[in-house]
């Protein structure tokens, strides 16, 4: 399948098919209640109100620019905006729908923050399919998480003893904390991914990322490392 042929005739109509969009977008009054309490809006050059407002124009060109921009990737999906909107919108839900579409169309590779989807996909789906968890000690490298502090360095260096002291059943059989998820259950997760488009999504993200890496003249390892670590200073509010 050629992903380049994926582009739907009308981006707004495509968004309207998304259940997150159906729930999260009605009509926007541009009051800014969402932006006022948005954790991302103070930190990044980010304004959820404007995103909803752009979507409300139904203008495909503007929506396409949005899907290719860093902007849609600034949200933390905390959903604080959902509580407050007087028109019962959920800007956070609109963002999820936009990100989904950006991923499907490969537009995410056009922005620095969007390109982070590749390492994120590898971390998250890797953990789920390999271990049955979203986060797992085997993939949590202290070197990538120095903020976890010297106590966590010690913990990871003495992982099995420390987890045992905490009452965990680490990689053990039966129930309990950080138990080994039985292989047949992992097989079921894989089958779910296959049936529901999870596997296809991983493939799409990898394929578009590979094309972008080539375009940027990088090998995949370098591309992914840069996506994970590099942060230009253009994003910030201050």
């Amino acid at each position: 399948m050629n992903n380049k042929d994926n582009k739907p005739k009308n981006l707004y109509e495509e968004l309207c098919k998304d259940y997150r969009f159906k729930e999260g977008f009605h009509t926007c009054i541009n009051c800014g209640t969402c932006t006022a309490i948005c954790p991302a809006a103070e930190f990044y050059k980010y304004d959820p109100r404007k995103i909803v407002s752009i979507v409300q124009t139904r203008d495909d060109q503007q929506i396409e620019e949005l899907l290719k921009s860093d902007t849609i990737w600034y949200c933390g999906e905390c959903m604080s905006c959902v509580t407050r909107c007087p028109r019962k919108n959920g800007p956070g839900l609109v963002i999820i729908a936009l990100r989904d579409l950006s991923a499907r169309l490969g537009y995410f590779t056009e922005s620095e923050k969007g390109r982070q989807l590749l390492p994120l996909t590898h971390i998250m789906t890797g953990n789920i399919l390999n271990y049955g968890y979203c986060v797992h000690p085997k993939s949590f490298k202290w070197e990538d998480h120095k903020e976890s502090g010297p106590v966590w360095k010690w913990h990871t260096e003495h992982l099995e003893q420390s987890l045992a002291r905490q009452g965990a059943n680490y990689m053990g059989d039966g129930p309990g904390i950080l138990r080994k998820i039985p292989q047949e259950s992992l097989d079921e997760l894989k089958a779910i991914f296959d049936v529901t488009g999870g596997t296809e999504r991983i493939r799409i993200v990898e394929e578009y990322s590979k094309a972008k890496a080539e375009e940027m003249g990088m090998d995949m390892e370098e591309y992914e490392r840069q996506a994970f670590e590099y942060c230009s200073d253009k994003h910030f509010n201050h």
Partner: protein
Amino acid sequence: MITEGKQKIWSDYQKEIPDDHWYYVRSCIRQNFFPASEKMFTEITQKVLGKDLYETPHHTTCGGIAYHCDTIPQETVMTIVARQFALMTEAGYENYVPSCITSFGNYCEILETWHEFPELEAKIRENLWKACKREFKKPKYLAHTSDLIYHWRNAIAAKAKHHLVNKETGEPLKIVEHIGCHYAKMFPSKGVGGAEYPYVLAGMVESWGGQVVDYPERRHCCGYGFRQYHVKANRGYSVSNTHKKFESMEPFHPDAIITNCPGCPYFLDRWQYVIAEQTGKTYGKDGFGIPVFTYEEMAGIILGYDPWDLGLQLHQVAVEPFLDKIGVEYDPKAKYLGMNKEDIMRPELPKSIKCC
């Protein structure tokens, strides 16, 4: 602050929480970062209170974090959740209790979406059958583990060996509560006390002798932000939001923070260390930080469990000043020992923030 006003709102948001027979699912993040808290939950539920709590080894992640990192489609996360419900159905339970707030929010959102769009639920049932040959019933009751501890808070208080009271002055300790965003911000009616003044943790603090402290940025997110933490390049977002909260709570001099979200206690704890490293600023007394606890840790403390059985040694911010205030006895030398007092060395102590 007008307490009666808050009490009025609290009374408007009470949810029905059955007293027994719960199907338990674990939290990815808490198993990694606060494993002993989950241990404490099963200990309190099953051993201290004698309740029926069932866990199957076959349950998995709900996929919530991967979903909110935008790495899996909606149908994928919904079908993973459908499988979780199928396991509950097969085990003969109808009360479902996840240990994670992201999961709790995920379940609320999915059930609500299915309610609104029954054709999607039908599709997910079909997906689950295709992938796993399983069928499911939706839970009759959905609660978060903190809802259950809230529900049993007075029973726990009745067995308490300590109270959230300064043993020197007899004054109640000042506790800040932090509620995970996905607990009630999406569906205020699903949380004890609603979205604006949640009572789930405040109720525990009051019941256990402490005084709840409100501060302007109480409702603000801890800064997890899913991709804003998991991707290294984005972590400035995460720390800056935690920083904002600490600057706002600083004048109130809280003795501790209690949380009900998997990520929040980790971020509120670790980012204090990072802020100290970067700016030299600490928010507790005499160069210490403000200790951050899960609700199970706090329950365990007042029930008289050994702090090192509660996993408090895995915090970066020292908990000892808090334990000293309420008069908990502990062996400082045992803090970093492994099983059977095995010596597994000690972590290096940071210089920027005082640790014990």
